[in-house]
């Protein structure tokens, strides 16, 4: 896909559908949306659809950021508390690191 060849209304649609797809627990899609449309939303000279694109990009950015915070928090909590959670902690573990000699 080459964005520069896309008419503005198609851009808006694309940005919107990326945002919608991102709502299915897909912050990565949001992050891609932000990177992909950043230029169109903030740097390019103003055009009709820019306001809406900007809105979606900002919402995507916030969403991706929130998810990143959630993920980091969860990983920290899990890593520090795995042992104290006992059986639950073990059940959640995918890889338990081996000790080193």
């Amino acid at each position, binding site marked *: *896909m080459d964005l520069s060849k896309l008419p503005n209304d198609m851009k808006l649609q694309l940005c919107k559908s990326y945002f919608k*797809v991102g709502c299915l627990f897909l912050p990565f899609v949001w992050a*891609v949306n932000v990177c992909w449309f950043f230029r169109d939303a903030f740097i390019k000279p103003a055009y009709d659809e820019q306001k809406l694109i900007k809105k979606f990009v900002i919402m995507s950015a916030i969403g991706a950021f929130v998810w990143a915070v959630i993920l980091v928090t969860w990983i920290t909590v899990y890593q520090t508390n*795995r042992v104290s959670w006992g059986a639950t902690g073990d059940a*959640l573990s*995918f890889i338990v690191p081996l000790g080193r000699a």
Partner: protein
Amino acid sequence: MSESGSDLDATEHTALMDGHIAEARPDRELAERIARKRKTKSDNQRSYGSVEQIEGGPSGASIAQQPRVPAAPVEPQIEELELKYGARHVIKLFVPVTLCMLVVVATISSINFYSVKDVYLAYTPFHEESPYASTKVWNALANSMILLCVIALMTVLLIVLYKKKCYKTIHGWLILSSLILLFLFSYLYIEEALIAYNIPMDYITLGFVLWNFGVMGMIVIHWKGPLRLQQAYLIFIAALMALVFIKYLPEWTTWAVLAVISIWDLVAVLTPKGPLRILVETAQERNEPIFPALIYSSTVMYCMAAASPAPGAAGERELRPLQPHGTVEGEGRDGTEAGGGEAGFDAAWRERRDEGAAPRRLRVDSAPPRYVTRLDPPHAPPHAPDLDEEKGVKLGLGDFIFYSVLVGKASSYGDWNTTLACFVAILIGLCLTLLLLAILKKALPALPISITFGLIFYFATRSVVKPFADALAAEQVFI
């Protein structure tokens, strides 16, 4: 003029490679068109323009000649431009090919899992366990012939499906295979990588990450997405597939398969009745992109136009590469579960083969589309506005896979001299192929030259250069 030109361009993108179709057209018209095009293009200062035109002329010598009559003085310039254009794209192809090999080599040398032989594909019933060299040789040959048959069968099946316009079936197949690759194989890869690096991980994070990674991949490959991301996913998929082959093919079978596949590539692409050639021609006749997903393009790949008939095709291509991986893994995992695993394998293998065949060719796209347009005037206009431009050189994902298999296999013995020799040999082969592409201007198989070089360099380095270097090191002689 300009209008018609733009329309043509658009269609061009859609159409892929060589303009076999072009031959069908009245030469007169062609010549005129090309002449006009050249002028417009040069006016527009499109550097690639010249290449496109010439390539369009591709298979049909008649075409190439025709333009010359009207635009005789421009010829040398155009050829020079072509070469320059070609050189730029060679470099552009180097990067992804190198990246793919790097991923594979890095994985092989850091993750033990992929170089340990325990389970094999259902397609390779002979496991080379005998201590006798002659037995191993016929085992390897038999295995590779079986694989070749499966590949040929799958290719034919695909062509039949395509000819009968069973797009839904092909599409479903491709989507299924990419699903398997992006989720199952990625899962296995992540598991092995985490174990190798001893990184703790919980199921929640893993599921979340995999879900994000996989869905993004599906979107980018089968729908729309940034070009870079798409290229990255394609490279990763190719690397994953190569790893699967390295892991699940017996030792000597891998080398035999490489040799056999490159011969098959030659036959399938260059023979007049070769399956891949038929595939390309059919796609051109229908003015559709051929399996975009299976092909790495040095520039923009495909487009919105897909909305009509094209989308399916793109998906298919991608899927094919994926499927093979999927199958392989299934086999490896299930090992004993012959039934289900095997069935899966077959499909995967076929796809892979298909994929391999189609993707392996190098093509210059731009020219052929024009031809297509002319053939199907009604279709072209609607597509045109939506289509992204497809220019530049294309390399099939199958080529990526088998290049990486060769280099990865070489690196699995732990000798960096051999690995580097193979790497350089493959890049040289790629250069030569691209050079031939500039001269012959038609779709070419990318495997034969590179793989031949790679095999020669591998065995030469391993049996001659390495002992020599070792002896020198032992004697403390420095050259």
